[in-house]
């Protein structure tokens, strides 16, 4: 841990979770090398991607766990959303292969050097990769599937309340008018 803090700016998220941020691919490569050789964080346990569409980046998180399984370290790196790839880690961590395959399918990130990037969970998928923010799942559903009929009489309650209020007002006014006429 000490070796890490002297070299990187480590953010402590909680006593057992730390994160370091890198900017470039080279720095990322270096950080992964450093973390796995000079610190106790030897297990790659997860690769995550979060889509920050406003900033035009994917934020990739490589989660490392130490030998005692008591602390976690996140190595975070932003990459461009327009098809920028990263070198695959599958040579060094066999488990990275399937994680990269998953991310490739869900976000369309090409991992260079991973030759298993064929379809993983989707079959015959031709649309956008589904976890990208611009993919609208509800629009896709309405275009491809039908729902059960018989629910068209659903009312918008706000509209209904307003209509009834106005109706009541009108009735009241009519009644008053009628009573005036009576006089």
């Amino acid at each position, binding site marked *: 841990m000490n070796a890490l803090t002297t070299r990187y700016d480590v953010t402590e998220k909680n006593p057992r979770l730390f994160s370091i941020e890198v900017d470039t691919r080279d720095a990322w490569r270096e950080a992964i090398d450093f973390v796995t050789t000079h610190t106790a964080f030897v297990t790659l346990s997860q690769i995550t991607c979060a889509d920050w569409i406003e900033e035009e980046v994917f934020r990739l998180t490589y989660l490392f766990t130490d030998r005692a399984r008591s602390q976690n370290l996140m190595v975070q790196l932003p990459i461009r959303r327009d098809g920028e790839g990263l070198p695959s880690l599958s040579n060094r961590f066999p488990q990275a292969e399937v994680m990269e395959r998953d991310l490739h399918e869900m976000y369309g990130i090409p991992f260079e050097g991973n030759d298993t990037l064929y379809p993983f969970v989707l*079959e*015959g998928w031709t*649309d956008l990769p*589904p976890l990208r923010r611009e993919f609208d*799942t509800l629009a*896709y559903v309405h275009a*491809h*599937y039908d*729902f*059960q009929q018989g629910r068209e009489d659903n009312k918008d309650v706000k509209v209904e309340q307003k209509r009834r209020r106005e109706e009541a007002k009108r009735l009241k006014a009519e009644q008053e008018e009628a009573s005036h006429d009576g006089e």
Partner: protein
Amino acid sequence: MQQGLKQIEGLRQEGFVPYHTSLTEEVTAQQRTLESETEGLANTQTLIEKAIHWFQAHSMFVVAYGTGCGAIEMPPVFTSRYDIERLGVVGVATPRQADILIVSGYASLKTLRRIIRTYEQMSEPKYVIALGSCTINGGMYWDSYNTIKKLEDYLGVDMYVAGCMPRPEALIEGFVKLQAAIRDQTLEPGYVRYRDDYAWYRRNQEKVLGKNIAPQYEENYAGMELS
């Protein structure tokens, strides 16, 4: 009314409307009771037919395919707590020996292809029990891009069980009602609809799965009829 029925009959022959579409029935917002209205079809079975249907109803072989999360309530149903073997329901390994396919919950597109394949391999008479909300109108996954919303568009379903998870009792209730329907022949079986309206079902299947699905069921069926 009569004319409307005729019209539907015409459409059916062209393969456009499945039998269960209720064009003549107006779906009203009246309160529905929990009891379902079973229409008593004319019960004109001979004694032998009665015996056959009784036997059919009491030996139901369920194909071992847990397609969704409903599969987790199947072990309690099939083992000693609820022990559905009392009713003659047993699990079998292959679809060719099976009478019942339980579609337990949501069916993703990749599974739907296998479900269709499994269903078409089963020999008639065969019945489908749809378990859980997801098979009726999408359930929890109504906005998911990868699950189908209405199972009845793709298979001939005979019995729906409400719940997310349905309790084991609900699943047993489904079996009991299906048995009664088979015994009394009050049911228009899903496989008959599937066979007769195959063009409609096939079109729905191709809409979501593309052309790359199991070979045409119809062709085999036509061949069987000729021989």
